[in-house]
């Protein structure tokens, strides 16, 4: 089989993917595979991410859809979201929750935030990170019997921890 792209070389990379229920095949030679998809296709694009985002059959057939979901805040429709790969406003997350959540779970492997927040919880992550780095250094300094350095590191940790408590 010849390469779909250059039509010259033998195709050695074959892939098939279902996008909105339509199977798409791709057969490329090694050189075109490297040019077109330098790292294979598993990375996906925003469009791939959104490919099975909705239950609709195809973005080209809006007429057959009974009702097109719309965000009440920014008026963006699910079709626009699907086409651009981006949401219109924070409210879109709620408006299109039913469609978004399965996709978020698949891409992020979670739907629950575990990081910092603007209201101060875990807000000192940088300081905590520095403390954990210093603690590792402290263990190493003690292991190496480098007690002068260990003492300096210890006081840095104490200072950072004091800073966290006073904030």
């Amino acid at each position, binding site marked *: 089989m010849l390469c779909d792209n250059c039509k010259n070389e033998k195709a050695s990379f074959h892939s098939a993917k279902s996008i909105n229920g339509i199977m798409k095949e791709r057969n490329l030679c090694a050189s075109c595979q490297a040019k077109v998809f330098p790292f294979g296709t598993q990375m996906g694009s925003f469009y791939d991410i959104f490919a099975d985002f909705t239950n609709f059959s195809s973005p080209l057939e809006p007429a057959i859809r009974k009702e097109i979901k719309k965000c009440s805040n920014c008026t963006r429709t699910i079709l626009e979201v699907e086409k651009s790969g981006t949401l219109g406003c924070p409210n879109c997350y709620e408006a299109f929750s039913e469609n978004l959540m399965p996709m978020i779970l698949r*891409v992020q*492997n979670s739907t629950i*935030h575990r*990081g910092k927040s*603007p209201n101060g919880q875990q807000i000192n992550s940088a300081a905590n990170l*520095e403390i954990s780095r210093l603690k590792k250094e402290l263990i190493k300094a003690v292991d190496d019997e480098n007690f002068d350095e260990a003492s300096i590191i210890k006081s840095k940790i104490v200072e950072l921890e004091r800073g966290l408590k006073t904030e």
Partner: protein
Amino acid sequence: MTVNRDIVVSSRVRLARNIKNLPFGMKFNKLHSDNIALDVYRNIGGERTGFGLYKPSSPESLDGTVLKEKRLISEDLLSKAPLASVILNESETVSIMIGEEDHIRIQSIEPGFNLNKSFIATDKIDNIIAKNIPLSFSEKLGYLTACPTNLGTGLRVSAMMFLPGLSIYNSLEECVQAMSRLNMAIRGVYGEGSDSSGYLYQLSNQRTLGLSEEAILEAVISSVLKIVEAEKQAREVLLNEGGATLKDKIRRALGTLLYAHKIESAEFNTTMALVKLGAYYGFFDILDSNKFEKLFIEAQPASLQSICKKKLSQQDRDIFRAKYVSDVLNSIIQINGV
């Protein structure tokens, strides 16, 4: 493990934030953009703390393109000029992009392998901004972003890596697969898949939700170290198998950079990459590694014109590049043996 700039070129951390109750980027307008830029600028202390506020005049502007070549702003931000702005610190290690896909993107770039330092810099600015500017945040989903791939922490941690060993041995595909299982992505930086890429790749986290910032940071650091180890081994094999042919190719590349009359961008990327590999093998010494690394950016089209202080035709640019590169390399390279 000591990791030099000959494998990890630079470390970058980026946080995506949006202002509460405002539409995301696509519906962003000039008034919003200017107000947010000024608000953020004032909050982080403005000029007093050594920051400057810039506004590229158009997507084609020389100053804007120079910032893009230095990776201080993204292609997307530049395309939105003159609506978008960027706040930069004096040492050009921190840039805050206003009006990108998300309203605020805080970015820190450090030379070499220094992801912790970059993270601390962005986290600090984020804390200052969060104190006074209401951000779009949900208890469940975290920081709300225009694209769900940035949702949650809004954190992208990435290392720019120079990987000639793995590229030449076609082992990158395996690394990409292995990293993908760890939810890490490896992408070519420019000219993907061709020799002109200069073997530069970016490794970054794919997941931004469901993990703490520290967990994401540590996962990227440990992935970078795995790739560094694989690259070191590949370089050893390359040296053993390549022998005189490899040495010849590298020295010819240096010859081109030192004596050519004109050099195109793609040829510069390829030959500089080989020279960098040659320095790793000890074929020559680089007396000033900062100057050497800086040359990769200085030789890009807009940066060259900025150095030359005038607009140049492509041919004149290639001639100027050849002379500039030759002058710099002559002053910092010492060839060992024959």
